[in-house]
C-alpha cells in the first residue's frame, strides 16, 4: 500500500550538479506513484540542473549559492510546511535510490514519524569496508539504542517523514558534517519523534563517482565520532538556527 489517499506527499530532491541524472530520477519517482509533487532543490549548481529539472516537470527552488544537503533539505521542509504537505520524501538526485521502494517506506509511517530506506537491512548488496564500515556500525549502534529499534543505515539519504517530523526539520536541519543524516535523526529522536527503517536496494552510481580511499575513510570515522558526540550533547534547539528567535 502507498500511504493514505488523503495524504499530500512532497518529494524533495537535493541536487548539486546533477544535470545528467536528475531527469531520469524525476521520471522514475513519477512512475513509482503518480500523485506526488516533486520539488528539486538546486543547490547553486553550475551545470543547469535546475533548468533540466524544470523541463522534466518538477518544481524547482534554486538556492543562490551552495549550502550543502542540510541547507537544501531544510528549504524543502520549509516549503512543505508552507504548502501544508503531510509527508516529505527525501531521495538522492543521482538515481542511486530506487523509488519503487516508496510504497514500503510510506507504509512505515503508519507507526513511526521518520522511516529510513536502509541499505544493509537484507536487500541488495551495498558494502563498505574498513574504517568506513566501523564508522557506519558505530553510528548505527548508537542511534539504534536511542531509537529503541534496530537501525542499520543511518547515513542513508533516502527517507520519509510525516508532518510531526517535518515541523521539526523545517526549523532544525543542520548544515554541519553528517548533519543532514545523523544529527537530524538525533534531533528528531530527542524531541520525541519515532524512527524506523525499511530495507531498500541501493544501485551503484551511474554518473560521476563517490569518494573512497583509505585516508578519507579514516577521516570519515573520526569526523563521524565527533559529529555524533556533538549531536548527542548539543544543547538544543540551537538558538542561532531558529528562525525568528533572534534576540
Amino acid at each position, binding site marked *: 500500500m502507498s500511504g493514505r489517499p488523503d495524504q499530500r506527499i512532497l518529494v524533495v530532491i537535493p541536487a548539486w550538479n546533477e544535470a545528467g541524472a536528475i531527469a531520469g530520477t524525476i521520471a522514475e519517482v513519477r512512475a513509482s506513484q503518480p500523485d506526488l509533487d516533486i520539488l528539486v532543490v538546486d543547490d547553486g549548481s553550475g551545470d543547469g540542473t535546475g533548468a533540466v529539472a524544470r523541463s522534466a516537470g518538477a*518544481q524547482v527552488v534554486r538556492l*543562490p549559492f551552495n549550502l550543502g544537503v542540510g541547507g537544501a533539505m*531544510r528549504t524543502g521542509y520549509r516549503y512543505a510546511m*508552507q504548502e501544508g504537505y503531510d509527508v516529505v520524501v527525501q531521495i538522492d538526485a543521482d538515481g542511486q535510490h530506487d523509488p519503487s521502494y516508496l510504497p514500503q517506506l510510506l507504509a512505515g509511517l503508519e507507526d513511526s514519524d521518520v522511516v529510513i530506506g536502509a541499505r544493509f537491512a537484507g536487500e541488495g548488496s551495498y558494502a563498505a569496508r574498513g574504517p568506513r564500515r566501523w564508522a557506519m556500525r558505530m553510528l548505527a549502534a548508537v542511534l539504534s539504542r536511542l531509537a529503541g529499534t534496530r537501525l542499520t543505515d543511518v547515513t542513508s539519504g533516502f527517507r520519509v517523514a510525516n508532518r510531526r517530523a517535518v515541523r521539526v526539520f523545517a526549523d532544525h536541519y543542520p548544515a554541519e558534517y553528517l548533519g543532514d543524516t545523523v544529527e537530524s535523526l538525533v534531533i528528531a529522536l530527542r524531541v520525541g519523534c519515532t524512527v524506523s527503517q525499511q530495507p531498500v536496494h541501493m544501485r551503484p552510481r551511474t554518473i560521476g563517482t563517490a569518494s573512497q580511499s583509505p585516508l578519507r575513510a579514516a577521516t570519515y570515522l573520526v569526523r563521524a565520532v565527533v559529529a555524533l558526540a556533538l549531536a548527542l550533547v548539543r544543547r538544543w534547539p540551537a538558538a*542561532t538556527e531558529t528562525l525568528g528567535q533572534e534576540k
Partner: protein
Amino acid sequence: MSPVLTLGVVGAVATLLVLFEMLRRQRLREKYAVIWVVVAVGTVLLVIFPGLLTRASTLLGVQVPSNLLFFAASMLLLLLSIQFSYEIGRLEDRTRTLAEEVALLNLRLEQLTADDPSGPVEATEDDLGGDPGGGTGDGLRRD
C-alpha cells in the same frame, strides 16, 4: 627612549590612526574598534610607565616581566579569535537562513507570475550566480 620603547609607541600610535581612519570612513564598527583602542592605549601606557609591568609581575610572582606581557597578549588574541569564530558562525547561520528564504520567495514569485500575461520575472542563472567550481565544499557534503 630605547629602540624597543620607540617601536612600541610607533606601533600603538599607528594602530590608533588606522582605527580612527577606518571608523571615520565607516569601515569598522565601534564594537570591534573598542577592544583595539584599549590594546593600543594600554601599549602606550606600558611604554611610558614600564614600572607598571614590573610591579604587576612581582605582584603575580612572574620572574621575567616580559613573560607576563607575552602571556597576556596571547591570551587576549586567543579570546578575540574565539569571539570572531563565534561571530562568523552566527553570520553563516543567518546567511544560510536568508538564502533559503530568498530561494523560497523566488519560487513563490515564479508560481504567482506563471500565468500572468505580462510575463514572469524569471531569475536567470546569471542573476543568481551559479557555483560551478564546487560549493562551500568541506563539511557540507554528505559522504
